[in-house]
């Protein structure tokens, strides 16, 4: 069963200008994206900066306006006009930058307790053990309770962010580049314990990242975005072993590999893919410069290829 279903999501921003400040055109930040995430799995959303991956995540969170399309969470429509469905305690977000996503003037206790206070009337006496339990879960010592964010390293801060995100026992977590600000050794820590927590709590996760190595490690399904549209989607091994869209191929070829034996081959392959990309990329877009609609290749693997014929 799909916990999250996004159907034909569009987020357009108007460009205003001219004499009367009229709407001239639209920036199509997200332009017809459909994603479904089965319960308990991690879906990786990959793309370059400006491809619309964060906007998609924020639309699910209700943090930006949705031009058209539908978002279903657990069967309920989130963006209906009339009655608002309040599922915000079931969807939480982990932010990219652990240095700016924690209020520097609040103590860890207040940061982690804030979402709980928003939804439940609890006394301080009830909150303290609850917050301590959360800290333990993310591997922070009890002594952190009354410290301020600046007293922690980047990896520890990201743990505080995760503790805050899981405080309300959410079903879905949207992790927006959770490790891109961290060193590799710290990144390994955070990735490991995010996997642990996901298994323990049966969390569903949307993992937004630009690092394909990290995404491959974390996700069962991957969607590749380009200029507001998905160009390819499938199981992780399908995307990595059998990429079909030229953009996906180029993205995968561009990852620097630590295998020193393969470097010559990798560089040659990257060059080849780049040439193919430069030559053929226009064929992968329609007249308006948008990626084609996705077509199924296998049951799980879908690619934006031109309609045959």
């Amino acid at each position, binding site marked *: 069963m799909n916990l999250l279903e996004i159907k034909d999501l569009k987020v357009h921003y108007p460009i205003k200008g001219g004499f009367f400040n009229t709407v001239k055109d639209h920036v199509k930040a997200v332009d017809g994206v459909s994603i479904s995430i089965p319960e308990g799995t991690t879906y990786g959303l990959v793309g370059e900066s400006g491809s619309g991956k964060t906007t998609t995540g924020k639309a699910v969170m209700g943090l930006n306006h949705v031009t058209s399309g539908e978002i279903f969470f657990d069967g309920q429509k989130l963006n209906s006009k009339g009655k608002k469905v309040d599922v915000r305690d079931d969807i939480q977000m982990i932010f990219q930058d652990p240095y700016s996503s924690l209020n520097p003037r609040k103590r860890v206790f207040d940061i982690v307790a804030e979402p709980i206070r928003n939804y439940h009337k609890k006394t301080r006496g009830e909150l303290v053990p609850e917050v301590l339990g959360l800290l333990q879960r993310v*591997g922070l*010592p009890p002594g952190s309770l009354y410290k301020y964010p600046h007293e922690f390293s980047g990896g520890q801060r990201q743990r505080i962010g995760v503790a805050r995100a899981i405080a309300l026992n959410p079903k879905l977590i949207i992790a927006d580049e959770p490790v891109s600000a961290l060193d*590799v050794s710290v*990144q390994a820590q955070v990735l490991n314990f995010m996997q642990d927590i996901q298994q323990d709590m049966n969390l569903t996760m949307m993992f937004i990242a630009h690092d394909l190595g990290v995404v491959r490690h974390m996700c069962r399904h991957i969607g590749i975005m380009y200029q507001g549209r998905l160009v390819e989607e499938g199981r992780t091994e399908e995307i990595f072993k059998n990429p079909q869209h030229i953009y996906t191929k180029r*993205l995968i070829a561009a990852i*620097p590999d*630590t295998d020193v034996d393969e470097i010559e081959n990798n*560089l040659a392959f990257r060059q080849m893919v780049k040439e193919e990309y430069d030559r053929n990329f226009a064929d992968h877009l329609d007249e308006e410069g948008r990626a084609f609609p996705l077509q199924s290749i296998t049951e799980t693997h879908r690619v934006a290829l031109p309609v045959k014929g």
Partner: protein
Amino acid sequence: MTEKLLEVNNLTTSFKIGSEYFPAVDDVSLSIQPNEVLALVGESGSGKSATAFSLMGLHRKARIEGEVNFQGQNLLKLNEGKMNKIRGGDLAMIFQDPMTALNPLMKIKQQIIETLKIHNTKAKNEREAYAVELLDRVGIPRPDRVAEAYPHELSGGMRQRVVIAIAIANRPKLLIADEPTTALDVTIQAQILDLIRELQDDLNSGVLLITHDLGVVAEMADRVAVMYAGQIVEVAPVRELFKNPQHPYTRSLLNSLPTESMLGSKLHVIQGVVPALNKMDRTGCRFAPRIPWVPASEHEKNPKLREIADDHYVRCTCYKNFSLGSETPQNIDAEEYQIETGARGGSVR
């Protein structure tokens, strides 16, 4: 061995915290030959950027000791005026963050012409054309239009290219690249790395590449120096380092990468954190607190870099019987989570 382009001997850069000086770069010696790429890797706080800034003479308040020999001169002994002649000329730097390295109030062409003017490259009336040529050289489309633009009109990748264009404007003999691609997307990163490689070939310059991305290191470097807590702990040719890493820190780092072979398994986690500058134990092996299962007898009292194979240097003796998986407890001691106060090396300038 051929003529060395840069020779750094016992460089120690100390920052003042409170009333005391603490070395962020501690007795670092390295050398670069023409047409060689030396990569400097390590976590944040290990002193890589502090090393680069010391070489460039950009640390004003730090106490810098040792020797930096470049073209027969000790750069540390030069006064500001002479240093200005070298900086941006034969010795140039590509900065990490293209968003802040450029002046937001100056047109791109003015920023390039500025460095040409200081070093008297090209006649006055040729400079503008040369600036456009440089932009074209670093792969900027429609360079004549970009020359007239302000930095905010360009994307991150474009800005980084402009920063590179400025760095190579005076055909430097030595290029210091401080995390040149960290802020960029992979496809643009690949282009920028190609570009640096091409320019280096072309100008026969040496490159000091500072990065924490081991994939980039594997692709770019000829030799690699691994830094931890202000010291170089391992130096080796790139193949040797990836095929046959020795120091526990190097091996831990390589194992924490989410590579293909690690799929489905837990990544290796290095216990604890990089010690803060003013809380560091400077006696014995600095990596010892993060590999507590290694008995003290394995470490040296006063660890030195030793050549263990051709061109392969390792600090301390603890690498000999080191094994990664021997003991990696899931729960890290509460003690390890000591608060980090005080400034890290990189932030005190």
